């Protein structure tokens, strides 16, 4: 754990904030690079980027409320903009960002799928964020005696931040390689969402998160929701329903 990265005079620079910023910057660069490479006009790309950003922050907050209950600090809309309380939850970000982009696309009347623009950027962002989690000492796992356990918060624990870091790094490389190799638009994003939902579902068993029902956590229910939704999209695509549609 190394929560403070450096101190310059009286100014303290925190690891988590720095790595979130690095992750967000990398995400921004890759989204705009991919968007332009795929021929997306600047104006549309900027709107989609903003919609994903705002949607992801709102989605994140909704999931945190589901997990932690109606805490006043979470319910207060204006705390979204106070530095230090911009609290993230990746599952919420994925769902909220997706919904944000769908609303923006519907509003603009864009007749094509744009998820592949975001697909490689998401795991790259999370590589940086998980380094921040590891240094900040959050997102930790349950106690274990495994040889690779790390000492954190008074016990030897699963390094769940590192499990996810390796997953995200591997998927960034895979998605980057597959960028132009998958047959249909949005396959790249769906591949990532499906794989991440499966990974996260199992990683949750090692993480310290509150169990809400059926022995599962809120992120696990979201993972199942994502997997059912993907199954529905893939099953109906061949019949010309949702997958052939404009918005999903």
């Amino acid at each position: 754990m190394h929560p403070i990265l450096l101190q310059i005079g009286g100014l303290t620079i925190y690891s988590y904030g720095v790595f979130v910023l690095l992750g967000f910057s990398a995400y921004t660069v890759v989204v705009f690079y991919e968007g332009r490479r795929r021929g997306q006009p600047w104006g549309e790309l900027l709107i989609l980027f903003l919609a994903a950003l705002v949607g992801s922050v709102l989605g994140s907050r909704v999931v945190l409320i589901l997990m932690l209950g109606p805490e006043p600090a979470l319910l207060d809309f204006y705390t979204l903009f106070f530095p230090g309380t911009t609290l993230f939850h990746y599952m919420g970000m994925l769902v909220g960002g997706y919904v944000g982009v769908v609303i923006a696309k519907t509003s603009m009347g864009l007749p094509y799928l744009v998820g592949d623009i975001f697909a490689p950027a998401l795991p790259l962002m999370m590589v940086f964020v998980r380094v921040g989690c590891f240094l900040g000492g959050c997102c930790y796992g349950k106690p274990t005696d495994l040889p690779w356990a790390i000492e954190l918060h008074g016990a030897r624990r699963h390094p769940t931040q590192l499990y996810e870091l390796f997953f995200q790094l591997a998927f960034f490389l895979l998605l980057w390689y597959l960028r132009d190799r998958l047959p249909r638009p949005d396959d790249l994003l769906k591949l990532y969402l499906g794989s991440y939902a499966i990974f996260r579902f199992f990683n949750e068993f090692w993480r310290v998160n509150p169990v809400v029902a059926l022995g599962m956590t809120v992120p696990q229910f979201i993972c199942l929701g994502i997997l059912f939704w993907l199954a529905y999209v893939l099953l109906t695509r061949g019949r010309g329903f949702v997958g052939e549609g404009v918005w999903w």
Partner: protein
Amino acid sequence: MKRKKYLTREEKTNDFVIGFGGFFVLNWAIYSLLLPCVTILKAIVAHELGGTREPIERLNFYVMLFLPPAVNIGLFIFFAWWRPRIALGVLSALGSLIILAILAGVCFFLACFTILAIASPAGGT
């Protein structure tokens, strides 16, 4: 209500400015009006969460807390279909504030939601 069709660049710019500026004006007004009430109720609810306070006080508290996101998101979606450039202005204002919060976040202690996790067994992102 028909969706506005923009014919000139000036029309687009005007609507964008209305949306961007309107977001700050509207939220300043809401925040100024609600802040005293929310502060008092927040103190009551924080001390009495799970306690014996009248449910109506909690209800007022939650209604007031839900008002700003409901107004902001509701207006945003409404404008997205009616006057999209106003919605874009609102979106840009929201996005700019979030980006500023992320930038400033390097100087504030924050490890996922550790602040709240102290009070609950929850983990992180």
